């Protein structure tokens, strides 16, 4: 019994010391308003590394990935273009000279492909922003919190667009505008007025859900809806510099492997 009492006494002293130090720290830093619903202490912690789940989310054929929300409801001219593109791709693939894509040039995936997390993503957040780091090509996406989206005509197009977010209870709601029109999603283009709305929340401490809606009056007849599911990972995101691009692209946009 004596050792136990000794341990308990020691724990009490440690506890007192911690409380004292904590009090000193609080006194030295400005305290947050208790009613700040967006503060670090009250909002869900979505920080960490995330990988897509379930494991078969991508489908069987890397050259024909499963669309996350099924076929997109494209306006007629874009539907025709999509069919024609798939035919050109099939012919080029058969010939062993696949059509080059932006990734063939080491260009960023952009939105919303970044959130598809083909490589792992890491989320870091505080009271003012949510940062999404994509391992692939070291992409960075900044979501500014509790700020109004500026008028669209004042925003320059960007690969990741411009994102503004806010917390609604346990859900991070994010709107994204002005994604560059040379960014495509599953080989489908988009107009300059495409709007992406995401509702991101933890369904369990280690499971993150992102409900996405893409509205695009130029390309889509109806909004495209899908959900990305992620599992928490202990993987540490690594450097990814696309330094040794071996792809040669000809005048027809067909890719081959450099032999140098």
């Amino acid at each position, binding site marked *: 019994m004596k050792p136990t009492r000794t341990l308990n006494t020691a724990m009490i002293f440690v506890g007192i010391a911690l409380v004292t130090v904590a009090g000193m720290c609080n006194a030295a830093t400005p305290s947050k308003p208790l009613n700040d619903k967006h503060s670090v202490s009250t909002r869900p912690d979505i920080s960490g590394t995330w990988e897509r789940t379930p494991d078969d989310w991508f489908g069987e054929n890397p050259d024909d990935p499963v669309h996350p929300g099924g076929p997109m409801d494209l306006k007629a001219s874009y539907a025709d273009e999509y069919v024609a593109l798939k035919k050109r791709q099939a012919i080029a693939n058969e010939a062993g000279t696949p059509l080059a894509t932006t990734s063939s040039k080491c260009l960023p995936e952009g939105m919303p492909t970044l959130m598809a997390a083909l490589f792992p993503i890491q989320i870091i957040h505080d009271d003012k922003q949510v940062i999404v780091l994509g391992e692939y090509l070291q992409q960075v996406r900044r979501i500014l919190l509790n700020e109004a989206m500026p008028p669209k005509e004042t925003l320059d197009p960007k690969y990741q667009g411009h994102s503004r977010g806010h917390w609604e209870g346990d859900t991070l709601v994010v709107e994204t505008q002005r994604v560059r029109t040379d960014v495509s999603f599953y080989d489908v283009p988009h107009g300059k007025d495409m709007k992406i709305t995401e509702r991101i929340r933890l369904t369990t401490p280690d499971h993150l859900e992102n409900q996405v809606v893409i509205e695009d009056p130029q390309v889509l007849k109806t909004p495209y809806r899908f959900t990305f599911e992620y599992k928490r990972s202990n993987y540490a995101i690594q450097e990814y510099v696309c330094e040794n691009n071996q792809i040669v692209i000809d005048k027809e946009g067909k890719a081959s*492997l450099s032999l140098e």
Partner: protein
Amino acid sequence: MTPLSPSPLLRQGLCLLTLFACSALAPVASAHHSFALFDQTQTVSIKGVVERFAWTNPHITIYVDTPGPPAQRFKIETGSVNALQRTGWSAESIKAGESAEVSFKPLKNGEPGGLLVEIKIGDVVLTGGG
């Protein structure tokens, strides 16, 4: 949408779904370019000496010289640094001058190169992937 490097579990899952004898080669090629560069119906094996091991993204590349005749230099691609280091590869896994047996999916255009299936150096076997 082509850039792919699914999780190790996904790669394993894809392996079961593909024709390959190794872990998920499919995401490898698509990590940067289409899988269609390579003839997935064929597997070629060569013996040679590693001329260079490029531990680089978007793909790791192994250059292997074969004596022939005729003497040839094969350019063998595999996955990204990021994906393969998660499966145990490192920048020191392969060194120039080492003798190697390599199997790969050949380029469709007939050039001496392809997508790595497996490289054997001594008793060490490294599988392409991710």
